[in-house]
């Protein structure tokens, strides 16, 4: 076993709830994981699992009626939950940057791309106007936009979706953050563009020795990118571990289901419905295992007792009463 890398981010028992009129939503319910320096962590699960909420909780961007109720978010050993809004503003963008899902909507339509990149440097650096401009041009070329100097004066609508996401990545990277949270960064893009963007992100992260939390519902994407994988279901972690092991020998039936839904090339439709049934209503979760109604291996005990997270070998853990036999997989 390799030596455990020093954790850059350690999330402990995070609980984020939304107090809506229709009831309390336990969007994130006791989630713990850590991201090592230089590591890419894949956060996987179907839509509604709480992935985005985890991302926003880390940055302190949960708005009412939502609230981070419990847990610790240790970034470089310091709990971000204890930071003031002012202090968080210095961390957002500079230490921890975020890439959103839809580049069509995450850029301000009324500001030039140059202004939006430059805003990061104005906020997080002491550079003067000229130096900032040079940095912006350099950064824009880095993310693969040609004629960067000219493009600075363009508005978002003058770019294609893939190009916009490159701009968003440039914004995320320019202040030199140690952690990038990428929330479904390629979901809104064409299939052909997706792998380009993923490659770019991986290259940028590795080059800068930064860490990344890659949020996606697509296990195929994480298997391409991540070092570690965390699988989320109904706001809880059902399985986590190093990518290779987890993919080749999934221990949780849900992970296996997700793996079964990885599309063969050119066959992308309906891949999520390959796990039978639907995600239960988070406001009204069943007793016992949340996955029970969709699980082909469910037994009586699953209906009574909620499975606890327990460790397997090789740094893995799973929350299932009857983890899949690991020897089955090659």
């Amino acid at each position: 076993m390799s030596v455990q890398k020093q954790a850059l981010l350690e999330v402990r028992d995070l609980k984020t709830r939304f107090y809506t009129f229709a009831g309390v939503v336990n969007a994130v319910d006791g989630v713990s994981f850590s991201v090592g320096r230089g590591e890419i962590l894949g956060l996987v699960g179907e839509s509604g699992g709480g992935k985005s909420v985890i991302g926003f909780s880390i940055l302190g961007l949960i708005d009412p009626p939502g609230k981070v109720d419990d847990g610790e978010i240790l970034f470089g050993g310091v709990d971000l939950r204890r930071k003031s809004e002012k202090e968080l503003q210095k961390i957002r963008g500079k230490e921890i940057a975020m890439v959103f899902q839809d580049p069509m909507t995450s850029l301000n339509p009324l500001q030039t791309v140059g202004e939006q990149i430059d805003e990061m440097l104005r906020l997080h650096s002491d550079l003067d106007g000229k130096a900032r401009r040079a940095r912006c041009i350099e950064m824009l070329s880095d993310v693969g936009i040609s004629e960067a100097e000219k493009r600075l004066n363009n508005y978002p609508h003058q770019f294609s979706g893939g190009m916009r996401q490159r701009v968003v990545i440039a914004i995320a990277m320019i202040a030199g953050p140690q952690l990038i949270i990428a929330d479904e960064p390629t979901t809104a893009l064409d299939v052909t563009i997706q792998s380009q963007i993923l490659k770019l992100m991986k290259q940028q992260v590795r080059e800068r020795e930064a860490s990344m939390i890659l949020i996606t519902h697509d296990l195929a994407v994480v298997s391409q990118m991540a070092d570690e994988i965390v699988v989320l279901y109904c706001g809880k972690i059902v399985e986590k571990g190093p990518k290779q092991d987890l993919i080749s020998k999934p221990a949780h039936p849900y992970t296996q289901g997700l793996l079964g839904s990885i599309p063969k090339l050119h066959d992308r439709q309906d891949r999520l419905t390959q796990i039978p049934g639907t995600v239960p209503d988070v406001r009204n979760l069943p007793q016992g295992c949340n996955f029970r109604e969709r699980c082909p291996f469910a037994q009586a005990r699953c209906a009574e007792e909620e499975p606890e997270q327990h460790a397997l070998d090789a740094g893995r853990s799973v929350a299932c009463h009857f983890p899949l036999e690991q020897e089955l997989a090659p």
Partner: protein
Amino acid sequence: MLGYLTKRLIQMTVVLWVVSLIVFMMMSFTGDPVFMVVPIDATDAEIAQARRILGLDQSLFVQYVKFLTSIFEGDFGRSYVFRQPALDLILQRMPATLEMVLVAMALAVVISIPLGVYAGAHPGSRISKTIMAGSLFGISLPGFWVGMMLIYLLAVQWGWFPSSGRGDTVEVFGMRVSLLTADGWTHIILPAVTLSLGTMAILLRITRAGMMEVGRQDYMKFARAKGVAPRDVLFRHGLKNSLIPVVTIFGLQIGDLIAFATITETIFSWPGMGKLLIDSIYRADRPVIVVYLMLVALIFVVINFLVDLLYTLIDPRITLK
């Protein structure tokens, strides 16, 4: 761009022409102005002569052509009452009205936009609810009543402000301006507040609605994720994005302000063109009414044009076609 400007110019001319037609028809079908100019004891011959002098004996078509050509020459005829060129009369009074409208507009913008942004950003808060309740008053209370109340309380009871007139003025480029004297300001503040209340309330509500809509957009959250301070997120990223409807309504409201200026001027005895209009309507002083209507139409058309230009300044995705 040049093509656009030509097109707009033609459009504007057509609109003004239609207005001239409507104004002319209205004037022709509402009473006989000849009795305004002849003495009560005039003989039939005298009346006929007056009619000839005013051109009222000719066919409507000929009258209209004459009317139109003289408009193009800037000649709107003489006021039946003051015996002066009607255009001069209006132009003399116009600065007073514009001044009041301008102050009312400025008040509306300066007060309603920050409040609207705040109320839109914190829709549930108590302050926002207070602001919104206040804006309901602004919309529903009739301007003339508010004006009279202000006069009663602030002018009559407490004597803080004068109740009527324009106060000291200074002449700038041949126009009398009261905004350059302290006395002028004390005179303008009550009528301007009265005039602006409705617009203030509407702008506030539009701004709030826009900000609430914009607040849901990803780029607002993205800006926060960049580390932008909340206030800058609202004003630098949010406000501009909710400005298109605000500008649209504002453009329309300017028309309202000019229209309501007539009432406000009457209440505060403000010597503007609105008061002149009301007086002229009582006296059936046709040329003055015509000048007023045409001028207001012109202002409308120009403001509309400016609003369209403003759109393109706000939003790069909007192009002039």
